[in-house]
């Protein structure tokens, strides 16, 4: 199936946002932003992620630009889990250029990916975060997300 290109321009409170499919040329900016946010520089990982979500039909890898400047990115996919989960829209990650904070970049990206989830026929958006990641937790809460019925469990394998 041929992937349909996504490109959306919107003007909110005097700011012109362009949200579009990520391009291979965006990878350095995405890699740097992720490194800034997490301290981990992982170009190979982002290259692989781009090929999985960006140039396939596996998910949505969008970039936001303000006045031609990279402002942030989001990745999402429709996925079903085991343990009886209905397919849901999964927000895989989001990142906002720190110089573009407080311009509603995250909100525009999140709204856009949720719109695509709705079009794909799912009725629930989900994500998973570290409980100490207050910045992102607060962001997703401000978008209306709440704790859901699933609990993440883990154990060391050593």
């Amino acid at each position, binding site marked *: 199936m041929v992937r349909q290109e996504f490109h959306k321009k919107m003007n909110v409170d005097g700011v012109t946002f362009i949200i579009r499919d990520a391009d291979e040329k965006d990878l350095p900016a995405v890699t740097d932003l992720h490194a800034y946010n997490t301290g981990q520089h992982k170009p190979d990982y982002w290259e692989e992620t781009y090929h999985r979500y960006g140039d396939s039909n596996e998910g949505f890898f969008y970039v936001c630009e303000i006045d031609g400047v990279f402002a942030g990115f989001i990745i999402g996919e429709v996925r079903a889990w085991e343990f009886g989960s209905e397919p849901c829209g999964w927000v895989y990650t989001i990142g906002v250029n720190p110089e573009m904070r407080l311009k509603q970049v995250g909100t525009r990206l999140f709204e856009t990916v949720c719109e695509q989830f709705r079009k794909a026929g799912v009725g629930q958006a989900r994500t998973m975060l570290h*409980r*100490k990641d*207050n910045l992102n*937790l*607060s962001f997703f*809460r*401000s978008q*209306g997300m*709440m*704790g859901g019925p699933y609990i993440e469990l883990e154990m060391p394998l050593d």
Partner: protein
Amino acid sequence: MKLQKATYCALYAVLELARDPDVQLSATDIADKYNISANHLAKVLRDLGRAGLVESVRGAGGGYRFAGNLKRTTLFDVIHLFEDVSENERARDSQADTDIGNALNLVLREIDEIAIATLGSITIGTLLKTMRWRTERVERDQENA
């Protein structure tokens, strides 16, 4: 999670005042609305004032108004003034140094950490906004029914 009466009073007061930061309300206005003791609320408002979350306005038409930051002040910021919700609370338990005490505290600490992460990530602005969204959704559903 069970909150003390003073904590509920504080949350009602902060949220009611933050709903419209330009409006000033007396302790009696808030107490009447939430059916709580005006005397008790007055003490709670003094604590909130000391924490910089509300401020009193003197003179005719005076009262209290919200003085926090809608986008920064979280539910945790209000609750921790009246409850001991720190992550290290469990370590002070007298049985913490036994194997069973330790195992139980691991589970209870997990619950505490989730509670703190939840309360610390919901700002007053977010709570008021999502409350409005829920009301609008209910109204929409009623109109469509």
